[in-house]
């Protein structure tokens, strides 16, 4: 497999400008002759579909939800980074670039990250123009707050609902195009396969989740903006419907997978309470601006009421271990630190898997009103779930699966190894390396959607003859559609004894145990034995009730779990082969004396790029070497 990242020449500050100028354009009269498929309607998909339609292309946009406004980008709470330097605190495009490369533990591509930082300011302006009501100060100017992994205040926010507001901004732009007839929206449609004609992506097969109709859609280019695959762990902060099917189907058609093992475990989530639990809820990282993280110094204090534990008996372990970043240490580091103190037996709450996030100092300093204004909705959410009032007693938090840095490999144009197949947002692997900094997911989704795709997809389409697409009865189309129908029938015909959720939960346990916050060779090898067994059992014993020709959520779930059962294996394989620790990937064999991640730049300063080789064959691991010309490789320190 040939991997060419197509990084433009020239100094990093000029690459994107130069690339846009060198890109081919499509004349306005021809644009309407092209059809683009967008799968997903979150920040990358919604903004991308709207922006491409604004240019004059026809866009078919698909989402599994009942409305594009419900994509899981909506749940992002804390904020979005941009290098505006409105605070006069020394921020710049270069510093945002630097922080992101360093935050990603030097496993991201410099050119992509620079572009992300470069367009970050445009994103804020574009969102404001679309009506996003960001927080303002009394003078009417935009407010900022701080986020992990940065020493400047560059995070823009709309209360604790920044993702919601940015998504609604993009959704409104998308609906405007729907009204104008340039976007056709397919709600409650799930992509089940990619259509390839002569090695090029030309369409998708979908299932109408209401009628069960399995249909082919043909286009000149296909874009996947389908989010991450964190739900492979069963319990995560992702929405229940988030799944890896679109990217996995594309992988099996030849799109290489980049760094599948890079998973972000978010440090501040509400702890698990019992077996019935269906998902985990995030408490925004922004809370660490004012909340202090601690556990008791002594094990015997763990079951006591927190207010009874004296100041001297508390271990503010983030402030102790990382004095310069303190409670705003990056996510991977904070999560591991929480795991360490719980492993030492100093965790709090009934399960002992929890640490305190305490606002009492901030409430004393700023007053309850100010805290309420900043985080009111988060405090309310916490109280709903736990029945405890965080204004009076510290929150209890624990790390949970939140985001996947890994994803389909893409070049600088966001095109995968399949020509004509683009991948944007969390679904691709590109910008966050081995650890994503807070408030950077929203930035990347909108950067890809509003600014990168319109330029790079146009450049691709300019090389295609306008208005020439495969016919609906092309053998490749018919064959793909038939394969999907057969698979759906197969799932319905097994009529075994266990529900799809049962298998999903079992897979999640394996993944969390062996491929979670800490990984080791023996564990990963064990997982690589357990997962294929579970998969085999699934295909023999899954029970999907009902029929295809109706809304059938267990059928939807079964198809997604079937793909997770394969994707999980690739993640473990990737984690096994990456014999170093970096960012969110922590291999217990590779750590410093004080328990920090020990990178191996000599052997692993690369992206692992996996190529599918067919059923029953081992996938092949390729590498894309990473070079760091502007941010020099260094041990990441937040001390």
């Amino acid at each position: 497999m040939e991997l060419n990242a197509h990084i433009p020449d020239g100094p990093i500050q000029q690459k994107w400008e130069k690339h846009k100028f060198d890109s081919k354009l499509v004349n306005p009269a021809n644009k309407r002759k092209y059809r683009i498929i967008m799968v997903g309607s979150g920040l990358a998909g919604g903004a991308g579909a709207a922006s491409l339609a604004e240019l004059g292309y026809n866009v078919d946009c698909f989402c599994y939800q009942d409305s594009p406004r419900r994509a899981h980008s909506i749940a992002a709470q804390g904020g979005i980074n941009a290098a505006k330097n409105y605070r006069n605190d020394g921020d710049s495009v270069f510093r945002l670039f630097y922080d992101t490369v360093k935050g990603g533990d030097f496993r991201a591509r410099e050119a992509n990250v620079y572009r992300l930082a470069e367009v970050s300011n445009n994103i804020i302006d574009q969102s404001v123009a679309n009506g996003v009501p960001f927080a303002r100060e009394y003078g009417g100017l935009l407010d900022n707050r701080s986020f992990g992994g940065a020493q400047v205040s560059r995070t823009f926010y709309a209360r604790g609902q920044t993702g919601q507001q940015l998504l609604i901004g993009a959704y409104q732009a998308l609906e405007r195009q729907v009204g104008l007839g340039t976007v056709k929206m397919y709600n409650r449609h799930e992509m089940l396969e990619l259509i390839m004609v002569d090695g090029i992506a030309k369409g998708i097969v979908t299932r109408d989740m209401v009628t069960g109709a399995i249909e082919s859609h043909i286009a000149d280019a296909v874009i996947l903006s389908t989010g991450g695959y964190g739900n492979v762990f069963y319990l995560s902060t992702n929405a229940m419907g988030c799944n890896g099917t679109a990217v996995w189907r594309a992988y099996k058609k030849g799109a290489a997978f980049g760094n599948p093992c890079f998973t972000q475990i978010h440090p501040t989530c509400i702890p698990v309470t019992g077996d019935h639990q269906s998902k985990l809820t995030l408490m925004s990282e922004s809370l660490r601006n004012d909340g202090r993280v601690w556990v008791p110094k002594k094990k015997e204090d763990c079951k006591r009421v927190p207010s009874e534990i004296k100041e001297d008996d508390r271990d503010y372990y983030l402030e102790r271990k990382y004095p310069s970043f303190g409670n705003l240490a990056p996510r991977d580091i904070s999560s591991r630190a929480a795991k360490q103190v719980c492993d030492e037996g100093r965790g709090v709450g009934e399960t002992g898997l929890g640490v305190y996030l305490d606002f009492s100092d901030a409430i004393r300093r700023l007053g309850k009103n100010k805290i309420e204004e900043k985080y009111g909705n988060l405090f309310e959410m916490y109280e709903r779930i736990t029945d405890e009032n965080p204004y009076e007693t510290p929150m209890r938090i624990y790390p949970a699966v939140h985001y996947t840095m890994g994803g389909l490999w893409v070049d600088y144009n966001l095109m995968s190894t399949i020509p004509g197949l683009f991948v944007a947002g969390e679904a691709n692997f590109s910008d966050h390396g081995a650890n994503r900094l807070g408030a950077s997911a929203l930035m990347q989704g909108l950067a890809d959607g509003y600014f990168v795709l319109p330029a790079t997809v146009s450049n691709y389409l300019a090389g295609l003859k306008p208005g020439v697409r495969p016919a609906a009865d092309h053998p490749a189309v018919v064959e793909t559609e038939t394969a999907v129908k057969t698979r759906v029938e197969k799932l319905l015909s097994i009529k075994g004894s266990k529900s799809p959720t049962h298998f999903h939960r079992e897979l999640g346990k394996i993944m969390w145990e062996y491929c979670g916050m800490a990984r080791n060779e023996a564990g990963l090898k064990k997982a690589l034995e357990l997962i294929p067994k579970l998969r085999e059992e699934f295909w023999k014993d899954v029970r999907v009730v009902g029929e295809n020709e109706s809304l059938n959520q267990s059928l939807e779930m079964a198809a997604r779990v079937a793909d997770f059962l394969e994707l999980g294996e690739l993640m473990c394989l990737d984690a096994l082969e990456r014999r170093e620790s970096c960012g969110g990937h922590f291999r217990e064999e590779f750590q410093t004396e004080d328990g920090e991640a020990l990178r191996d730049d000599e052997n692993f300063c690369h992206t692992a790029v996996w190529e599918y080789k067919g059923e029953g064959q081992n996938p092949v691991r390729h590498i894309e070497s990473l070079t760091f010309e502007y941010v020099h490789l260094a041990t990441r320190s937040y001390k």
Partner: protein
Amino acid sequence: MSHKSMNLTLHVWRQKNAKCDGKFVEYKADGVSPDMSFLEMLDVVNEGLIAKGEEPVEFDHDCREGICGTCSMVINGRPHGPKERTTTCQLHMRSFKDGDSITLEPWRAEAFPVVRDLVVDRSAFDRIIAVGGFITAPAGSPQDSNSLPISKENADLSMDAASCIGCGACVAACPNASAMLFVSAKISHLGLLPQGQPERYLRVRDMIAQMDAEAFGTCTNHGECETACPKGIKMENIARMNRDFIKASLTFRHATIGGGGA
């Protein structure tokens, strides 16, 4: 935190699709923990149904953290159930007690046809947004955000209205199945911002016309919508919308026809 488990009786609306008639079916939910969310309780009931080879109860849900607006069911006659400012997914079983009977129905409104069981079609909301619930600002190079100061008060009021999650509880709660709380929230969100001014009056006319076309009823000031809204959207938005609508109606002119350039 209480550990006492509860036994409940559910009366659930089952309906195969919009064309078939529906009916209530009784299910037992035993051993329910008070720490479960309402939807997790339903998950357990559904797992039990699947084990018996029966079709599970279909209900809409996604983020399960109260922000996506997908979950939608009427619980004991109240959209999203008994707890104020709480979506169904954020409702916990500690709000119920052992031995309770719970009735579950879909949103009921002509404009929201039933898809199956507790799932309804809310695409009418999308169509209302598509005719005017936006600011025309194609992606490009807009002006710097700080060149357009917005008073904190207006930014906050706009944000209050923009908090709407589009769940449709307001419609389900209204005796007239009116969508005016939803529509007015968008009118306020955009109309309170300077960016939203150029299209302000066009927006209100177009959105209200579409709202009427979708068979939503009209507002007669019952206030049920505000009570049911899980995000605390206020009826003052309806007043703001009515003011804009009157002004728009009195001063409306058809757009003059433009000509080509030189």
